[in-house]
């Protein structure tokens, strides 16, 4: 233990504790800006500086560790003046038009400037030129960027994608795309982690809300919306509502008030995905000699983009099953159009996803199998949906819950857990076990070792005729490690679930943003509780799915199912892909 004094308090902390953490342990708050624990401790903003007695210079507290006998002052005039000056300097290069900024009220810089009581600036404003492409799903605003470097760090260290980097030198240092000039030409997976780690609004999603409103306002158009599993863990955060209150049923009611004609659940198509993917997998196992293992899940478009960009040799091992978002769209504009007896071209199909990559996925040129139009017309992040709710003056706290529409609003517990890492694997194995044995395992105890936040989880499940070796990774860095280990022959599996974002979809880049906190840890249990409390726990038990096969598709992997629910991952290209 190291003993020191902070603001007159005796503090005793383990060796190598940072000054910031030592102060926190004594209940002393040091303001930070660029800092993100364990990820970005670079001391770029110089806001967390403190005075160490006997030293003339101030030191960053986020990345300097305590020494025995140190006497530290966190709130002297020298410290306060310097801190304030640094924040004023940052503001001199920041577009602080807060009124038109979607991060207003959820902005680390705004909060800090308010906390330091900065009311005017002694400097002229110098805003850099802006160059982000407004049509790409991920947009960078150079005038907002405060060069905290978090995006670079999360992209490199957690996601192994290395899209962002520091460019230029001196006054013109900024963050920009590494190896390319334009983001749209890069190998970006569109996981959106840079957005959720951005303290300001320098990184944001393309806002598609106006397109949705245009469709809603068009009397000729029938609007449908599907709500992804993970959305129910977080959509109420922006309204200060708990997930227990901000249920998917309440969101359904809000969406009807926003103006959607039909509100459905992506859980329906998640169950459909399980039927297709589990059967695809079992077919592979039957024909094991001619197949390459592992098979990879395909529901995460961020992962698919990453694989195509960085590990193209594994792309043919990714399941051909479409993601639940795309399965939903294909069914909506075929099966459901028939039920409604309308021209599918009159349907405008929207998805609410915790995800940026879904915006890219629904726009791939081959995702138009139902009627030639895009199967999904627009994909909104949860942040956009929260804005849509506010725009339409809907007050969720005052809106009673309503049921989803049928039949595409029906889902099982197996579908709900798609939103957490390990969930797709667990759901698939639940049904696969039934398909092979004819018996339903206990869902609360049988395949649960793929749950939890370990980055790379492994399990072996005994099925008749096969010891099924599975692995689950979340975060593209872990995916990268697993693929390298597979290629080097260090590991082998039959089936692997990959989710691009840490925590799976509950950590997706489209969720409400919480500064310096990884919210997915709290969101995943919400989904497991929902699963536990649902009457139906197995995808193959979903009555709407059963009916869809009986009345329309025939059976899993039928010709029609192959046409509508499966895809060729080579039919669209990543930038630079040949």
């Amino acid at each position, binding site marked *: 233990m190291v003993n020191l004094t902070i603001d007159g308090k005796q503090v005793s902390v383990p060796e190598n504790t940072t000054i910031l953490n030592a102060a926190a342990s004594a209940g002393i708050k040091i303001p930070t800006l660029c800092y993100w624990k364990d990820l970005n401790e670079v001391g770029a903003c110089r806001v967390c500086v403190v005075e160490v007695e006997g*030293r003339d210079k101030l030191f960053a507290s986020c990345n300097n560790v305590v020494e025995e006998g140190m006497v530290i002052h966190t709130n002297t005039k020298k410290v306060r003046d310097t801190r304030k000056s640094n924040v004023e300097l940052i503001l001199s290069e920041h577009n602080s038009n807060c009124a038109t900024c979607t991060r207003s009220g959820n902005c680390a810089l705004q909060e800090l400037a308010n906390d330091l009581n900065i009311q005017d600036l002694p400097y002229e404003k110098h805003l850099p030129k802006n160059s982000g492409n407004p049509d790409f799903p991920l947009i960078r605003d150079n005038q907002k960027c405060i060069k905290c470097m978090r995006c670079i760090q999360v992209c490199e260290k957690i996601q192994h994608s290395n899209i962002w980097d520091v460019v230029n030198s*001196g006054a013109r240092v900024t963050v920009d795309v590494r190896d390319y000039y334009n983001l749209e030409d890069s190998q970006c997976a569109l996981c959106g982690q840079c957005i959720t780690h951005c303290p300001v609004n320098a990184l944001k999603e393309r806002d598609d809300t106006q397109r949705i409103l245009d469709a809603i306002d068009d009397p000729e158009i029938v609007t449908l919306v599907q709500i992804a599993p993970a959305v129910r863990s977080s959509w109420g955060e922006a309204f200060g509502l708990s997930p227990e209150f901000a249920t998917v049923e309440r969101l359904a009611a809000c969406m009807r008030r926003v103006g959607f004609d039909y509100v459905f659940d992506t859980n329906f198509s998640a169950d459909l995905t399980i039927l297709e993917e589990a059967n695809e997998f079992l077919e592979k196992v039957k024909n094991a000699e001619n197949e390459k293992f592992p098979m990879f899940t395909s529901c995460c478009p961020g992962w698919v983009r990453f694989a195509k960009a960085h590990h193209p040799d594994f792309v043919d091992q990714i399941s051909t099953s479409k993601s639940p978002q795309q399965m939903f769209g294909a069914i909506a504009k075929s099966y459901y159009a028939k039920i409604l007896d309308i021209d599918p071209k009159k349907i405008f199909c929207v998805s609410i996803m915790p995800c940026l990559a879904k915006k890219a996925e629904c726009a791939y040129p081959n995702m138009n199998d139902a009627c030639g139009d895009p199967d999904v017309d627009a994909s909104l992040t949860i942040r956009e949906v929260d804005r849509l709710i506010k725009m339409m003056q809907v007050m969720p706290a005052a809106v009673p819950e309503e049921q989803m529409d049928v039949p595409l609003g029906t889902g099982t517990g197996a579908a709900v857990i798609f939103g957490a890492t390990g969930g797709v694997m667990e759901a698939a194995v639940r049904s696969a076990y039934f398909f092979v044995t004819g018996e339903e395992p206990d869902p609360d105890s049988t395949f649960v070792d793929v749950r939890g936040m370990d980055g790379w989880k492994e399990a072996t499940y005994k099925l008749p005729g096969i010891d099924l070796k599975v692995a689950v990774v979340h975060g593209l860095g872990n995916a990268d490690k697993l693929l390298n280990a597979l290629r080097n022959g260090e590991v082998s599996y039959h089936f692997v679930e990959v989710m691009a974002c840490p925590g799976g979809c509950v950590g997706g880049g489209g969720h409400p943003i919480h500064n310096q906190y990884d919210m997915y840890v709290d969101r995943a249990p919400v989904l497991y509780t929902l699963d536990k409390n649902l009457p139906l726990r197995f995808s193959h038990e979903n009555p709407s799915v059963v009916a869809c096969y009986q009345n329309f598709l025939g059976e899993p992997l039928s010709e029609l199912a192959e046409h509508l629910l499966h895809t060729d991952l080579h039919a669209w290209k990543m930038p630079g892909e040949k």
Partner: protein
Amino acid sequence: MSRLQVIEKSDAEKLIDELNRDLEHRVAAGQYGACPVDFIASFVKFCHSQSCGKCVPCRVGLLRLSELINSVLDGEADEQTLEDIENTARSIYYSADCAIGFEAAKMALKGIRGFRDDFEEHIHNHRCSNTDHGVPCVSQCPAHVDIPGYIALVHEGRYADAVNLIRKTNPLPATCGLICEHPCEAQCRRSFVDDAINIRGLKRFAVEHEGEIKLPEPMPDTGKSVGVIGGGPAGLTTAYFLRLMGHSVTIYEQRKMLGGMLRYGIPAYRYPREILNREIQAILDLGIEVKREISVGKDITFEEVRSAHDAVYLPIGAHAGKKLGIEGDDAKGVVSAVTLLRDIGDEEAPDFTGMDIVVVGGGNVAMDVARSAVRLGAKTVKIVYRRRRKDMPAQTIEIEGAVADGCQLLELKAPSRIETDADGNAVALWVQPQMVSAIKGGRPTVIPTKAEEERIACDQILVAIGQDIDAMAFNEIGLPLTKKGTFVVDNTTHISYMPGVFTGGDAVTGPATVIRAIAGGKVAAANIDEYLGFHHVLPNDIEIPPIRLVDRAPWGRVDMLERPAPESIKDFNIVEYCMSEEEAHQESGRCLHCDHFGMGKMKGGRVRTW
């Protein structure tokens, strides 16, 4: 009323002097990572601050020039701006009245033309193509040794850890502690405060206090074997890393002993043989086979070596001395520096007792042979160089050492012919006095003066004007050479049209430094490993001590002392003293730790694997 006054420097002038000196230090340690366009813009602005303001081109022109360059940086310029910049700079150069203006414009023009690509990159892509914000010493070290890491370990007294950290990227720490030209010190950020850290000195100190050498265990055998032709620093480096990766390695060495130029080029008073032998033996003890006195191309064919191994590394060095090309060149008593140093290396040194020796050349090798000649008993040693002392490529410390040893420097003397006696023995070197002339390519040229030729009587002439590689044997079997006679190879060290054959060291770079040979050897080891189908990552588990928070007050640099010349010239024992422990502790405490402070922190401060 007095007509004149004695004028003392004002306080303001003294302060200007001080700031100019600080600036000089800062500029001299300039960081390569800075944007060249930004640098030129700032430079022009600085020059403008020196303008007296009388003349238009300087007073107005430099300001407009800096604005134009800034518009490039701000992304507001186009191709026409570049023309405007060049035209403006040219007009200032042509018409400024004094050097404040025309020299500023000349340097600006040099930058505008030299960095044209970067200007274009700014205009078209609003980017700088030239920035690298790495840790200066690590970036500048060709082998990218973790210098702040081992300096921190020295400061903590963990000397063995310090040396083993060096070995992660450089298996010849003793060598580099003694004779590295330390490019790491050139951009040391400590120069902004006072002077560069004595990095080489700290390395030497760590090596001398390491205790028993404990090298890592090699990884499990891979069953692959690599032949290394040449046991110099490049070959030893590659052999070391490949052996640690589990490959079996055989070194083919044409001489009696390993070490290459470390033994056959560097005299023992700079690099004691027992330290060299110990360093080499520790590497060989990893289980490396050595075939000595076997010359590939003579005793064994290259194809035989190639077929005996899965890959071959070919760092054959540069061991052929250049000739003077003047009358009498072949006379008895005209000896190349390479030959003399080789004989000394093989412990077959000649006796120069009572002789008058002339050394031709101004590089480090010239100093080495001159100082060796003193130690071999020469009565006089004269170093003849066609340019000035200050133009000599040798390190200043080596020139000073030679002078301290009693060598005479004869500057501005170009050898014209060698006079021989009836038996063909060289008896004198005739030289034509020169005078310094125009500066071309950054170096002053010389021209002959009208003075008479001078005769320098001597018994031996030692020629140290450069080395060539002796690669004809390899050229004959199909390895093409560059015009300079070096191997043709890309930056992966692989000879692409000859699968599995890699090369490096002086044979590729031409005569260069040991650290460049080591860096090349490291690159070759990594790429040979990949070529053999592996991707071994050598572990790095040495914990670096935490950073100390201090104010970095200006503090003098510790330099190493030397044995007094009257004593040291009597033997080949090492001349340079090591730092003391208290000096090493203080010197290591001066490190600013750019691995932690500044951009170094961004990437975790250090590259743990390579």
